[in-house]
Each structure stands twice: as C-alpha cells, then as structure tokens.
C-alpha cells in the first residue's frame, strides 16, 4: 500500500529535490513530483492528488511556512502531512513549524536514515503504512 503513496517535494534547489526524490525511491516511495517554490507547490496540490509533502522553508515567492499555512487553511489539503526539510535551525522556527501543523522537521544536512525514519513514523502515525 505504501508504495502507491504520492509525494510532492518542494525545494528551490534542484539538487536537493533530486536527492530527496532518490532517497524516497530507495525507501520504496517511487511516486513523486517536484515544485520549486510554495506557489508552484500549491498549484500542483490543488490540481493533483498527493499523499505527502516534503518541503523546504527558505524559498522565493512563497516560503515553506506560507505554504504550510495555505495547506492547513485549505479544507481539501489540510489532512496532508507536511515534513519540513530545511537548513533553518533556529529553535523558534522549529517550534513555529510544529505549531502551524508540520508533521515533522528535519535540519539539513541530513542522512538517508533520518528521512526514512521520519517519513515512516509520520505514515505509521497517520495509519497510512
């Protein structure tokens, strides 16, 4: 069942999108799409069905916090788990993300095991795995 889950990877750096995409694939989640900022991500989320969002924070046009806020305000999207994967390491950012409804928070640089653990933990918690 878990292999059919569809992921959206949001990051303004294509290198990081490829890394996350490849890691998810290695972990058994091959179905993924990409967006370079919050605006594009929101468009894709509203036009296509996704099960999981992995998002950076510091991005142009619409940052990860704004994207998270838009997702949680949208009745059709608010159920989506959003895992923040970011270089932002201020404690207040981490707390803010949790308070806004982020399902998890990973600081860059991270390992394959960390990403896999967080994704699996969130999916298990949501009964999706």
């Amino acid at each position, binding site marked *: 069942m878990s292999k059919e889950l569809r992921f959206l990877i949001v990051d303004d750096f294509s290198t990081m999108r490829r890394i996350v995409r490849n*890691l998810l694939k290695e972990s058994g989640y091959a179905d993924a799409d990409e967006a370079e900022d919050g605006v594009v991500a929101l468009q894709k989320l509203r036009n296509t069905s996704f099960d999981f969002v992995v998002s950076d924070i510091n991005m142009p046009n619409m940052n990860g916090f704004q994207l998270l806020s838009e997702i949680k305000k949208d009745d059709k999207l608010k159920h989506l788990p959003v895992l923040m994967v970011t270089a932002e390491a201020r404690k207040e*950012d981490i707390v803010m993300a949790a308070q806004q409804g982020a399902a998890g928070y990973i600081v860059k640089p991270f390992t394959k095991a*960390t990403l896999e653990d967080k994704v699996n933990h969130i999916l298990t918690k949501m009964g999706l795995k």
Partner: protein
Amino acid sequence: MADPVEQSPNGSFATAQEVHHQLGALTRQLHDSLTGLGLAAKVKGWAGELPDAKSRLSYIARLTGEAAEKVLNEVDQAKAQHDFIATETRRIGELIVKDPVAAVAKGHVLNFVHDVENASKKVDQHLTEIMMAQDFHDLTGQVIAKVVNLAATIEEQLVLLLIKTAPPEAAIKAAPTHEPYVPALDGPVVNGNDNPDVVTDQSQVDDLLASLGF
C-alpha cells in the same frame, strides 16, 4: 627625522607623520559625510555583517572541502568493490571453462553469486553517500546568496555616497535604488555552537519537539 614615505605630485616627499594626519583628516571627513547623509548607522551595520560574511565564506570553503573529500573517499571504496567483482568474475569464468560441473558442485558459482550480491549492495551504499554529499550545493548556495546580497548593498550605498558627495560639476543624477533584499530566514547555521538559539543536529530538533509535546 621622519622617513620620506610618499612622493607628492610636485615631486616633494611627505613624511609618515604628514600622511598620518592626512589619513586622519580623510577619516573625519568621511565620518562627517556619512553622519550628515544619515549613513552612519548603515556603515555600523556593515561593520557588524562583514565578520559574519567572513564566517560564511569559511563555512562554504569547509563544506565544499568536506564534500569533495567525502566523494573521493566513497569513489575509492566503490572502485575497490568494483575491482573485486571484476577479479571474481574472471576467476569464476576460468573455473567454469576448466570444469563447469566441478565449479557448480564445489559451490564456487554459488559463492560467487553471494559475493557479487554483497559487493553490489556496498557499491550502492557508496553511490547513495556520493549523492548525499551533493547537498552542499543547496547549503552553500543559500550562504553565497547572503554574502552576494551584502556586497551588493554595500556597493549600492557607496555609489550613493559617491554621488551625493561629488562636486556639482561632476554630479550625475542618481538612479533610484531598489530596496535591498532582506532575507526573511537565516539559512544554514554557520557558527551553531556559539548560538544557544539554534540547533546543530537532528537529535536536538527531536528533543526540542518532544519537550513541547509534539
């Protein structure tokens, strides 16, 4: 007697003391001009940001260096595994050519299959590590953007100062300056150990969230 240190346009030499006085006068003039133009606070801000820019450049150098070393190490190990597979393939090939039945019966073929499978897994792990090492592009890219913005802001303000202090005959109309980009977020932690307000690894993130009940 003071040493002559500089030859003036008319051919005479200025003493070190005279040069010192001239520098002092220039510094005071610059200070007065900056204060008069309301730029003193901005210059004070640059002074605070320049050491930060130095730290950020050092961070870039360290991160790119570490990434390069990691990739080279992983390539070395992957190549060693690849060499092993190549050597074993030649060896088993010779055994099969020599006596195919014995090669299978004595377990040489099955051992070879297991060895290749294990070596392939290791090669795959090294390739994953090489891929992960490329995250330096994202992290250093964010830091470079901040340093570039700082340099652009300083350049812009210096040009503005030059225009405002230019004599009337040399004055040109200043182009309207765009608002300097102020990053909303801090980006990668450059000196995390010195700052209690930031986390330096994932375990600290997990502990923080757990302490808040998330």
